[in-house]
């Protein structure tokens, strides 16, 4: 099973960022797939939390929303939304937040609010949801999104959730004690913030991808770390686990189609 798509590589590379001891606040979409692949492969005891209040959930199919019944049915327990955000997130109990985004800049700030001016947007996006406080209150943040010029932009129209702000010790200056984004996993490579400047820097390149491809798909002149490694290719187990859960999910979401 040596063939895999860039999206599969992205999801599997993202899943490897998680450990068995993590308590992870899961964003919907790509992060949700990655977190569940981690749970079904190398991190069986990971605690997955969705913002609907489901804690320690073990879904058999990936949820379409953050509040599918599957999440509650398989959770260790379920709390109200105010309790979720106050006691568990603001309370500092969550080690890792896993986010996606529409746009990201070189300091891993995310925009999911608007393209264009806020009052007269060219494109109105869904908004922040839980992200602004996930970004500041989780121990660290992983971000996963495909590398493209449209997504990885030189300047954001709007900062929905702060990563490293203007870079350097900006988080510290605002009183934040958490690490912020520590890894960005794309379909072509993995980036991490430079230890000093906090600018995202390529540290690992996926099989078959060239440096030129990465440069061409990034909206700012992207830097490469001194030592750049090759991302290990997906194992058979990882690929099979991801394909199985995607197949179960597709089947589950197609049923029950009636008009209200």
């Amino acid at each position, binding site marked *: 099973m040596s063939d895999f798509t860039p999206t599969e590589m992205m999801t599997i590379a993202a899943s490897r960022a998680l450990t068995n001891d993590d308590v992870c606040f899961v964003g*919907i*979409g790509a992060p949700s797939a990655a977190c569940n692949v981690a749970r079904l492969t190398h991190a069986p005891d990971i605690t997955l939390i969705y*913002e*609907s*209040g*489901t804690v320690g959930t073990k879904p058999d199919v990936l*949820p*379409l*929303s*953050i*509040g*599918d*019944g599957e*999440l*509650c049915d398989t959770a260790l327990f*379920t709390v*109200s*939304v*105010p309790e*979720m*955000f*106050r006691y568990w*997130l*603001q309370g500092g109990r969550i080690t890792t937040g896993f986010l996606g985004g529409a746009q990201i800049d070189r300091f891993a*700030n995310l925009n999911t*609010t608007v393209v264009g001016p*806020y*009052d007269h*947007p060219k*494109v*109105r*996006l*869904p*908004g*922040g*949801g*839980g*992200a*602004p*406080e996930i970004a*500041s*209150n989780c121990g660290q943040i992983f971000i996963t999104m495909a590398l493209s010029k449209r997504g990885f932009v030189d300047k954001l129209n*709007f*900062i*929905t*959730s*702060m990563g490293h*702000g203007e870079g350097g010790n900006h988080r510290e200056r*605002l*009183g*934040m004690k958490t690490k912020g984004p520590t890894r960005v996993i794309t379909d072509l490579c993995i980036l991490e913030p430079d230890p000093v400047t906090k600018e995202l820097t390529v540290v690992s390149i996926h099989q078959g991808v060239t440096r030129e491809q990465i440069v061409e798909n990034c909206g700012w002149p992207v830097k490469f770390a001194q030592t750049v490694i090759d991302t290990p290719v997906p194992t058979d187990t990882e690929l099979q686990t991801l394909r199985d859960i995607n197949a179960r999910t597709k089947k*589950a*979401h*197609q*049923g*029950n*189609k*009636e*008009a*209200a």
Partner: protein
Amino acid sequence: MARLMSLAEAISENVQDGDTVAMEGFTHLIPYAAGHEVIRQGKKDLFLIRMTPDILYDQLIGAGAARGMKFSWGGNPGVGSLHRFRDAVENQWPRPLEIEEHSHAAMANAYEAGAANLPFAMLRGYIGADLTKVNPNIKQVTCPFTGEVLAAVPAIRPDVTIIHALRADRKGNVLIEGIVGVQKEAVLGAKRSIVTVEEIVDELNPPSPNSVVLPSWAVTGVVEVPGGAFPSYAQGYYPRSNAFYIAWDEIARDRDTFQAWIEENIMKAGPEDFAKHAKKAA
């Protein structure tokens, strides 16, 4: 004490033009049948409040019922945009929509402050986030003990809150289980409240002493509407119709297909039409 009433009665008595209305349910138990009745009765100039506007508010906005909306995440979960919401914000169709945008944490805290009869909520939030620049209702407060600066937002005190619950007894005591969201806080913070339920039973029999129960004396009206949360879901009754959420993307993308859908499925329909979705999951 809550009155057991028809949906038409409950909406016409409790929702007035211009009201601030919260319809809550965090993915689970979204009060679709009640929201459709609001559209059917032609209520207008409503200021809508909801953490995740979802398809229901897309329908209310597209139908022209709303003058404004307070929210924290305006998408079709896992699918994409709410096209009617976008059309209102980007093109002012069918009318301009005033928006007050927050984060989930701030909305949840603001509902809790409303239930607790406090004027505002505080949280360690919005740090470095641009919403503070565009929403004048996000302010700062300094802790009198430590000097820490925290974010402050006004409490949510709706004129009326509308929710859907699993069941009620004949006295109007209401039971919610599963993903309970912010419904308890939204009801307790409101001047009036309407609860639609899957069924009215002789004995509520809460499955655990810690079940979420809203007592009859904290609720204004209770209405039996089996299936009333469809295409959202009712834990133990029927699952979320993810297929409908996916199908909505096409329906709502175009103004004409949207209006035809509203005409056919809301204006020419009634709360009894939700019953076909209420069949218990096999």
